[in-house]
């Protein structure tokens, strides 16, 4: 029986987009709020690509004394692939944070542009205008960007809810540990590059850094484990010196991770990765339990371990020697400026030459810095874009991290909070470890600079990290009325 008080058909038709049925959006029929967000993302993305185009044009102007039409090709490819990602986000994560993708795209684009600039620098002057688009490190990085962004799109497409990840937590945790420790047990011929055993090499051309992926897997596991254990870790404690300390048996997992990071430090000769895993774990533990005591225990364990390793380097040598040397180089790189201190000295000289404003893109000599395409890319860019440019780059990273933390604050489920918070902090810590290393704030350790350094593993893993943050921020920002993720 129909009543005259039911909604008129016209009104019902108008209300259709507002109903839960619209939670399955399409390109054309997007929620107006989502449409506003995505439009912001699109314009920011085009602005980012315009900046990359400007950078590449400046490079050509400085290095070729003319701007050829070639500089459009890398920008075109980058814009196309990021627009594809934008479309996937419209379809699968329409409420996701609009700042993340443009910011990361700008970092990624500048990385490609700078690597292309290095290729031009290596080429003979006469050959420079003929540098092919996919040639050299810049071209390879461009290809890796295609693969990495495709990976991010796939993750967004297939993982519709970040909580699905927790179903595979134990598998991911185990796989993560295996990946972390694999290079340590493999023979050096397969796993060692420049003194750090972090790699798995397939032939002489292709190599992956499993640690980059292990980072994400372990974090997913930590988040899952801590959500389940947070009650007991937070409540069962003893009070000592006004601080609540956990019970001895609850320390088990912490000790395991601590031991693992020390193993990494000693056998993979890599302080940075070790610091990264441990910091990542301690911080997620702290966020989960809200207990400051975990931070104190973590800091004491890590710095105690590091100091012990340094002392052992002097007393025992052996596996500790590498770490001891790195600390000595850090304390005084100019002691052996052409020998052990060479890398750091050249990095400092590059940064110092850049000064406040830099020499301009393409006008410096970043190739004087060893490993400028990997670990030292930030120092290499610093020569050409100066303190102002590097400060802007730091601001970009800070923006990505703060958007990740904001997603963590806004998302409603504990697993999502821990995962997003952990991912954001891990990114921040990695940036701190490598940039602090190349600018002599802390001892230098081989880490990739996220989204800048040449290398596929790092780029793919970090874009997956961004895809996870996008997924969580979408969950956090989806209004409840559209049937978004429930509590």
């Amino acid at each position, binding site marked *: 029986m129909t009543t005259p008080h039911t909604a008129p058909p016209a009104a019902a038709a108008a209300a259709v987009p507002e109903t839960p049925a619209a939670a399955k959006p399409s390109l054309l029929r997007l929620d107006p709020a989502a449409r506003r967000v995505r439009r912001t993302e699109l314009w920011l993305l085009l602005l980012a690509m315009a900046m990359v185009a400007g950078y590449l044009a400046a490079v050509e102007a400085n290095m070729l004394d003319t701007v050829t039409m070639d500089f459009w090709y890398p920008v075109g490819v980058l814009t196309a692939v990021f627009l594809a990602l934008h479309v996937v986000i419209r379809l699968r994560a329409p409420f996701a944070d609009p700042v993340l993708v443009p910011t990361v795209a700008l970092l990624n684009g500048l990385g490609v542009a700078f690597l292309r600039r290095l290729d031009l620098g290596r080429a*003979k*002057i*006469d050959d420079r205008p003929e540098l092919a688009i996919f040639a050299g490190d810049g071209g390879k990085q461009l290809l890796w960007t295609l693969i990495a962004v495709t990976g991010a799109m796939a993750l967004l497409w297939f993982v519709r809810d970040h909580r699905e990840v927790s179903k595979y937590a134990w598998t991911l945790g185990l796989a993560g540990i295996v990946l972390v420790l694999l290079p340590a047990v493999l023979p050096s011929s397969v796993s060692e590059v420049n003194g750090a055993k972090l790699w798995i090499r397939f032939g002489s051309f292709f190599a992956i850094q499993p640690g980059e992926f292990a980072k994400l897997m372990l974090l997913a596991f930590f988040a899952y484990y801590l959500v389940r254990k947070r009650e007991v870790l937070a409540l069962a404690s003893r009070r000592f010196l006004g601080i609540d300390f956990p019970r001895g048996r609850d320390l088990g997992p912490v000790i395991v991770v601590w031991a693992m990071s020390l193993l990494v430090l000693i056998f993979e000769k890599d302080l940075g990765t070790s610091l990264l895993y441990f910091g990542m774990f301690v*911080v997620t533990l*702290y*966020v*989960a339990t*809200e207990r400051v005591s975990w931070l104190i225990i973590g800091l004491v364990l890590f710095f105690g371990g590091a100091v012990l390793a340094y002392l052992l380097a002097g007393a025992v040598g052996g596996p500790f020697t590498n770490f001891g040397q790195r600390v000595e180089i850090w304390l005084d790189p*100019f002691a052996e*400026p*052409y020998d052990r201190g060479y890398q750091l*000295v*050249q990095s*400092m*000289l590059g*940064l*110092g*030459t*850049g*000064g*406040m404003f830099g020499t301009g893109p393409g006008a*410096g*000599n970043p190739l*004087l810095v060893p490993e400028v395409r990997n670990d030292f890319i930030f120092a290499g860019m*610093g020569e050409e874009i*100066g*303190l102002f440019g*590097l*400060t802007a780059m*730091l601001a970009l*990273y*800070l923006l990505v*991290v*703060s958007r990740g*933390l904001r997603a*963590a*604050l806004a998302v409603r489920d*504990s697993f999502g*909070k*821990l995962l997003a*918070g952990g991912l*954001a*902090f891990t990114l*921040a*810590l990695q*940036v*701190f470890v490598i*940039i*602090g290393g190349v*600018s*002599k*704030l802390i001892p230098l350790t081989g880490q990739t600079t996220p989204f800048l350094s040449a290398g596929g593993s790092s780029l793919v893993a970090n874009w997956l990290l961004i895809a996870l943050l996008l997924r969580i921020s979408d969950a956090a920002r989806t209004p409840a009325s559209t049937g978004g993720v429930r509590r």
Partner: protein
Amino acid sequence: MNAPLRRVGVVVMVLFGLLFANLNWVQAYKGNDYRTSPYNGRVQIDEYDRQRGYIMVSNPGSKPIALSTATKNNLKYLRSYPGGAAYAHVIGYKPVNGTATGVEQLENDILSGTSDKLFADRLRDIFTGSHTAGGNVTLTLSKTAQDTAYEQLVKNKIGAKSGAVVALDPNTGAILALASFPSFDPNPLVAHDAKASDAYKRLEGQAGNPLLNRALQETYPPASTFKVLVSAAALSANRNPDTPLLAGPGYQAPGTTHIIRNATSSTCPQEQMTLKEALTVSCNTAFARLGVELGSQRLNDTARAFGFYDDSLRVGNLSATDRGMRVEESVLGPLTTSSGGDDKPNIAISSIGLNEVRVTPLQNAMVAAAIANDCSQMRPYLVERLVGPDLTTGLYAAAPKELRRSCTASEAAQLREMMVSVVENGTGKKAQINGYVVGGKTGTGTADEEANAGSDGWFIGFAMKDGRAVAAVAVILDDAGKGGSGEAARIAGLVMKGVIEDKGGK
């Protein structure tokens, strides 16, 4: 969980704040130190961004002896030295790594364009975006004299393995020729690749030490050329060219059994001869006895007045006499005993330029130049003019300076008279030049049986025209064997002829 997440945010802010503060320290505060650090390869690349200026000889219209040509590499200009080995010890070289030497080092600011004198050019570059070339240096060298000096050293007729020539303009102190033998080709040393350091290592290990500038940095026993100084000391002690001296075949100084003899038994067998005659034939016994009579004090004073014991002399640009190429100190050695009295046996041997008397070729040329210029000894210099990149704007022109008065004008005239007699009647006949009055003194290390004297052939002298000095010269042939001083005199004559030729016969 939001409270700890916010605190994590604060931690991240702190970490990034540390990074930002540290970048400020490295890039802004320490930036200039790092930019100009000797470890910073960009310093060199920047240097090579601007075409380095020319170095030229004094002859108008002649081709540069150092120039930079464009390359297609990171380092945009390659230095080259068309003059090769003949000019290597004067110009030096400007390697990519390490420090420059010679004039390349001395006038680096002008040549590289970083001098304050070229500020206007750099200012213009900022607006035009171009890199104006560096300034140019004109040396005092006389091309014909320099080429002759080096060529004759290399092709000397007595097989000497090393030697040096210095020619000066006695009126100004301008260095007209400065050659050291053996020399080296500076071109491989300025290559842009590792060949440069290989070439340097090869030269360093080479016998005869070709990198050593013997004209300035090696000292030799002056042998009989020292008799000129003893003569000057005698004139200052109220003697004159006609003062009779005791000569004879042998002289035994008080307090020693050692007998000083003459080069040949026919040199001065007579019991007595004048000072002028003794110098003309280079009589050892007369000068040994004369030196002992004059005493250590007067010999020392005279030597100082002519430039001995000057360890601060630098040769280069007269506007910066504390810079430039270092000149080794010339010395007489010990002439007194431990109690302070005259050590007569030592004075006797030192008076014929042996024992521990040591001079640089430059110092010996300065002795001849002072005598030619009425004992006004001029400060020697190498840089005649500095001009801007356009080759016309004058930045500096040398204003000759007197270094010291060595004796009185009348004593100088008497010394000239005696030295002219040496070339006209005595041991230095091979230095004669048609139409010019040439004076000089030879020296041969083997004149005595003193083993440490080696076998050097020396000639120092001057050429005059119408009472005006044209050139002064010192030539040494080391390890010369027989006839060394005669060959040195011949070369000295040719070098002075070269000077005359470049001056248009004036």
